[in-house]
């Protein structure tokens, strides 16, 4: 009987260390590649995401549930269906595509104004660069308008989803800075 009760209780209250991460960004930023890289899966055949992908990964004692949502413009309005209970927002940008920096900064600015994402910490993965040639984080921060953010913590992490360089460092930051939101 007690066993049943405790099972029920466990069902009702998710374990403390479960974390919901939301992976967003423009189309072709590399969100799905990053997700597969996190789950140590094959990354050779990746097509544009039409809906979403989800993977659970264990990292430093946390169970990270990572949601990767398709980034094409016509499906961006659906992003809002996934905002609820997000612990960390991970925004992926293609650092080599400077032409779209302004577009991506605009999408990000809209996300940061969402009530359901208020005060949620932000990790920006500056994807598609090897760390040696990465443009300075300060430059990136200013072109994405991160320096005007005052209501949440943010971090820039240069990475290459293709070689996995920098990916783990980003997740380490996530794990060390999660503050559980009161459920």
């Amino acid at each position, binding site marked *: 009987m007690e066993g049943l009760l405790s099972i029920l209780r466990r069902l009702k209250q998710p374990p403390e260390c479960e974390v919901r991460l939301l992976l967003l960004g423009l189309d072709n930023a590399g969100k799905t590649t990053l997700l597969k890289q996190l789950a140590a899966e094959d990354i050779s055949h990746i097509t544009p995401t039409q809906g979403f992908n989800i993977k659970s990964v264990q990292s430093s004692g946390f169970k990270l549930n990572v949601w990767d949502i398709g980034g094409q413009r016509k499906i961006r309005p659906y992003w809002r269906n996934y905002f609820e209970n997000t612990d960390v927002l991970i925004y992926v940008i293609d650092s080599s595509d400077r032409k779209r920096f302004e577009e991506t900064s605009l999408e990000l600015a809209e996300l940061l104004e969402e009530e359901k994402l208020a005060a949620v910490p932000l990790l920006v993965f500056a994807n598609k660069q090897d760390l040696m040639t990465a443009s300075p984080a300060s430059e990136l*921060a200013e072109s994405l308008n991160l320096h005007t953010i005052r209501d949440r913590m943010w*971090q820039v992490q240069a990475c290459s989803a293709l070689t996995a360089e920098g990916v783990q460092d980003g997740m380490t930051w996530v794990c060390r800075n999660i503050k559980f939101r009161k459920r």
Partner: protein
Amino acid sequence: MFSLMANCCSWLKRWREPARKVTLVMVGLDNAGKTAAVRGIQGENPQDLAPTVGFSKVDLKQGKFEVTIFDLGGGKRIRDIWKNYYSESHGVVFVVDSSDVQRIQETRETMAQVLQHPRIAGKPVLVLANKQDLEGALAEADIIENLSLEKLVNENKCLCQIEPCSAILGCGKKVDKSIKKGLSWLLSNIAKDYEAIAERVQKDTAEQRALEEQDKKERAERVRRIREERWENGNALKSVRFVSCCLHHVCVF
């Protein structure tokens, strides 16, 4: 007796003052211990931190002050964002890794840039000479000399206090006493000149916000135009295809 009453009066006076909002900016080279110091003050574990390449903020109440501390990344490639936070700040906390003798020149140059900035010069500065627990850490006097601190603060008219400390050793009530002491020094000196500093903060912040707003509008406009062009190009391409398709049919006939 009189002094007791006078004390009471001044205490009462202080008690009736409204809470004061103070913003501090925390800077210094990477690995100096900025985040550790902030965590300690906040009552959280100052160990096992990831390097900050960005921004985090803590709010705390200290006596009559509602303090906000901006903790900024210190690495070479992120330092350029510091200037964006100066106008809002009433004072500066500059953290130095006292054991990193090799980078003391870099520390000096970086500190000079901060204090000379027009939006910082004249504001009070607390220098935390951190990592005193490590072997070979420079003592207070050596740091003052190596940073030419006296000259620097005099030139920029910044009130300055230096506190040797070890941010890693404790947190909450057990946080290094010198950190607490330094923080209260900084706050009481901001309080002494509060009206003037607050006015300056307000004016500078308003100026900066206006620029940011302008920039945001221009960006939105540019993106709108690019999207329109893309749409038009898409349509143009479609009509070209349509025309060539028609021509093809005509030729076949």
